[in-house]
Structures are given as structure tokens and as C-alpha cells.
């Protein structure tokens, strides 16, 4: 892995963000909403609207608006929310922080459960344990998050009263309470990922266990345990890094629904509110931040993968 490889990947991120910014700008331009109307509300007079449009540059050609928007973005200025009038940048990044906390905890929980499940299923391929793991996976991927979330709240909060049903308490404010509030959403997000990742781990490990070098290691007289630990697991788990990074895309989508139900003021919730209120600058910023997060996570995963797997040669 060379510096030029890293540079190349970084430029891909820039390209990605450029494409995303174009897409999102195009969509928000066509969205049936007039930014001036959104800001002044239904009671504004036409003169007031026109004056505002003029001052916001909404009458300029679209490509100029895009250029201006991009220019402000490059200076770190995401503009102001049409809905609340607040600066978008700080609001979005604070929300992103909360979502990332949710995401990181979910990925952590998922890995702790999914990897051992996948390994067990692969070793016990075709046996009862394998079937059970598959069953769990299938049930995990069979219900949308809003249903699992509803059921989880119903059972663990309403019926059992083990956990707070909803809401968000910052960990800095009250660590234990904050964590308790995160348990249900984290579990709900993890379920689908557990199913996906445990299946990937299983199939990777099955492939590796069928490879020539595993057979060769067996023929050296190494015990099954040693073969699994030293030869198979490492190779089977490495690709999981990439898979998990790609799942971040799914996770960011799932976060939208889960944050809505659990009243977590993360970036997904911000986006939903922005979309519902046609708060165009917030939509633009939110989508762009999500895409950037996804790109950066995948970039980090690639670097990590390359660092762990010496085999991969980059130009």
C-alpha cells in the first residue's frame, strides 16, 4: 500500500461526494417546495417572498446556485435551516455524533454475536447448530425495523418494564440512564446485521475450510483446533471488515427508522424531519454527510484490510 494508493482512494471520495452533491442538489431543486415559502410560511405576501428569493439567490440560474452552494460547503458552511433558522452544520454534526454512537454500539453488539454464530454454523455445517443459526438469521432478516422495534418496545418496555421504551439521554448527562435508553434501538438495528454478517462469516469460513491450504495444514498433522484458529479464522474474518463497512450503508438507512421510533435526535431523524418539512438545505447537508460517512468508513475499512492482509498489493 502506497501513499499514491491512499491519495487515489481519497480522490474517489471526493468524486463520490461531488456526484452525491449533484444528485441531491438536483433532487432538492425539483422537489415541490419553494424555499422562500418554506421560510416565511403560508402567510407571507408575494412581495416579501420575492424579496427573500432575491436575497437568497433563488432567482439565479441553477448551476450558479449549485456553484454557490458548493462554494459555501467548501468553506464548511452548510447554510441555515429553512425550518428553524439555525445553522445546519453544528446541528447535523451533533446529530451525526449521536447516530454514530448508535451505529458503533450496534456494530459492536453485532460482531460479538454474529461472528461466533457464523463460526459455529460453518464448523457444524449441515448439523442442527447450523440449522438453528440459519433459522435465527432468517427470522432476523424477515421483518422491517419498524416492526421489530414496535415489538421490542411492547415486550421489553411496556410488558416487562426492563428498559426505558424510548427517548434519548446523552451519556455525558447520565451514563447509566443514557446506556439503558440505547439498549433497545441498538438491539433492533443489530438484528438484521447479525443475520447478514453471520451468514457471510459462515460462507467465508466454509470456503476457507475447503481451500487447499487448509487441507495442506491438516495433512501436516495440525489438530482441528489449531487449523481453525491459526489458518482458517484469520482468512475468513478478514473479508468481514469489508462487509461490515458496506453494511454501514444499510445501517445508516436503518438508523432513519429506528431514530424515528425511539425519538433519538440523530442524523436520520434530522433527515426525516427535513424531508417532511421540505427543509432543502438540511436535506442536502444531511444526505451529503451520510454519504461522506459511508465513504470514509469504507476507506478506513480498505486501509485496515490492507494493513491486516499483507497479501494485497496496491499500486
Amino acid at each position, binding site marked *: 500500500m502506497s501513499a499514491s494508493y491512499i491519495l487515489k482512494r481519497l480522490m474517489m471520495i471526493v468524486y463520490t461526494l461531488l456526484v452525491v452533491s449533484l444528485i441531491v442538489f438536483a433532487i432538492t431543486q*425539483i422537489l415541490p417546495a419553494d424555499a422562500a415559502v418554506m421560510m416565511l410560511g403560508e402567510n407571507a405576501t408575494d412581495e416579501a417572498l420575492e424579496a427573500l428569493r432575491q436575497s437568497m439567490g433563488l432567482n439565479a440560474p441553477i448551476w450558479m446556485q449549485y456553484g454557490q452552494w458548493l462554494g459555501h460547503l467548501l468553506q464548511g458552511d452548510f447554510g441555515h435551516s429553512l425550518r428553524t433558522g439555525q445553522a445546519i452544520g453544528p446541528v447535523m454534526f451533533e446529530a451525526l455524533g449521536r447516530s454514530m454512537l448508535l451505529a458503533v454500539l450496534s456494530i459492536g453488539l453485532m460482531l460479538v454475536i454474529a461472528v461466533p454464530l457464523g463460526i459455529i454454523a460453518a464448523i457444524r455445517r449441515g448439523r442442527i447448530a447450523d440449522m438453528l443459526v440459519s433459522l435465527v438469521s*432468517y427470522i432476523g432478516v424477515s*421483518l*422491517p425495523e419498524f*416492526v421489530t422495534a414496535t415489538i421490542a418496545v411492547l415486550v421489553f418496555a411496556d410488558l416487562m418494564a426492563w428498559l426505558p421504551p424510548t427517548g434519548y439521554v446523552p451519556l455525558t448527562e447520565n451514563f447509566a440512564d443514557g446506556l439503558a435508553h440505547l439498549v433497545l434501538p441498538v438491539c433492533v438495528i443489530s438484528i438484521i446485521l447479525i443475520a447478514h454478517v453471520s451468514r457471510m462469516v459462515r460462507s467465508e469460513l466454509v470456503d476457507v475450510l475447503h481451500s487447499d491450504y487448509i487441507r495442506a495444514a491438516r495433512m501436516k498433522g495440525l489438530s482441528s483446533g489449531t487449523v481453525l484458529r491459526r489458518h482458517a479464522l484469520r482468512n475468513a474474518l478478514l473479508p468481514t471488515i469489508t462487509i461490515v463497512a458496506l453494511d454501514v450503508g444499510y445501517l445508516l438507512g436503518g438508523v432513519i427508522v429506528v431514530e424515528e421510533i425511539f425519538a433519538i435526535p440523530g442524523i436520520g431523524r434530522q433527515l*426525516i424531519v427535513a424531508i417532511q418539512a421540505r427543509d432543502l438545505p438540511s436535506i442536502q447537508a444531511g*444526505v451529503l454527510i451520510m454519504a461522506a460517512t459511508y465513504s470514509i468508513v469504507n476507506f478506513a475499512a480498505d486501509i485496515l484490510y490492507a494493513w491486516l492482509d499483507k497479501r494485497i498489493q496496491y499500486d
Partner: protein
Amino acid sequence: MTEFLKRLLRTPQGAIGLVLVLLVLIVVIFGPSLAPHDPESLKPLARYKGMSAAYWLGTDQYGRDIFSRLLIGARATVTMAVLATVVGTLAGAVIGTTSAFLGGRADEVIMRTIDAVMSIPSLLFALLIVNLLGSSTANALVAVAIAFAPGMARITRSVALSVRKQDYVSAAIARGESASYIVMREMLPNVIAPIIVEMTIRVSFAVMLFATLSFLGLGAQPPAAEWGLMVSEARRYMHLSAGILVWPSIAIALVAIGFNLLGDGLRDALNPRT
């Protein structure tokens, strides 16, 4: 074909998946004629009823028969999901195969752009598109199809690239065949099998994506009996009668599991290794 079916039925996934999907298809085709009640007529006196001989799965918040609604809603739910997946897959397959065939700069630009599009979570992308087009079943279909296309393009391309390296494609090029013949006749038939596997599994994602769009108020429109819409509407009434929520959830889960199992079964049946 029969040999392939045998291979498919040999794995438990394939067998159960096929049975479930066939069951769903039967409901899709014959559901409306089997429904014992009008799925839309309101019955003020029969709201929130539990399971009974008259209403097998009880009634919902308007006194409508849940069983009838499920039978009729299968058509909207499953057909939409399958259609969206097929459209998304076709679009993706064409982009992916073309990109793989073109190669070089064009391929790189197409794939980087696809990567860029994929960095927007598909649910979010679908949300934006539905908002753009207005919420309706048809628009949700378009949104899900568009959201699926980049992923399918990626998969198709990687399969197509491996096919393109095959000697029979080289042979066709060396023979001087036209590009369209090579893509359509030599490459596509060999790209299709893995695509079908992926597509089958994605149907279950589509069912869930539709349900989620309905939950966010952007999918099917009431009083449609679309299952996702039924579940999301039922959330408000679940404390009054759990059945309203439970039955359509189970229906969705069965479809999702069915297509997932079938996809896995197909993969195993097509893969000589297992």
C-alpha cells in the same frame, strides 16, 4: 430442468423456500377470489374483533376482515416487490453488463459513479425519490427499483467481468461477432443465473423496503390492503387489538423468509461445490 429442481429440493432451504414462495404465488393469483369478505367495507359494529369463525384472523380498526385483506393485499405487496426488484435488476444488469463489456475508462467512470450513488443509503434514496415523485405505490416502485439498480449493477458487472474473461467471449470477438451479439447471446445467458439468485433474495428486501416506506407514509395509500401499510397503520391500534399488527407482520415475514430461503437454495443448487 427436473434435475435442477431435484438439486434445489435436496437442500432444506430450497425445499421450504420453494413451498413458501409457491404458497405466496397461489395467494397472489387466487387470493381475491378466496377472500370471504369485502376487504374495504367498514363495519362499525365489528371493530377490533378477535379470531372467530366469521373472521378467521379477526377484524381491524374499521371492522374490516384481516384475512380477506391479507389475501387481497398479497397481490399489491408481492407483485410490487417482485416488479420493483425485476425492474431494478434489469436496469442494473444492463448497466453492469455494458460497463463490463466497455471496459477501460467508461467502465471506471460508470463504476465510480455507481459507487457514489451507493454511498446514499437505499432507504434514504428511496425516500428522496418518493418525495420527489409524490407518494403512491407506483412511485414507491420506481424508487425501490432505482435504489436497487446500483447494487445490482455492481454484482452484474463482477459476474459479467468474469464471463468476459471466458474464452468463448474471446472466441466470439476473434470471430468478429458484433458487440450486441456478444453481450446479448454470449454473455447475458451466462450472467443470468447468479443474478437470479441475488434477485430472489432482494425480493424480500423489497418487501421490507416497501413496508418501511409505508411506515414513513410514503408507500401505498390507504385504504389499500398492502401489507406494509397494514402493519404501519396497525401500530396505532395494536394496544386495542394485537391481531391487527401481528397477522400482516407474519405475512411479511413469511414472504421475506420464503424468498430468502429460495434464493439460498438456488445458490446452493447452482453452485457445484456444495
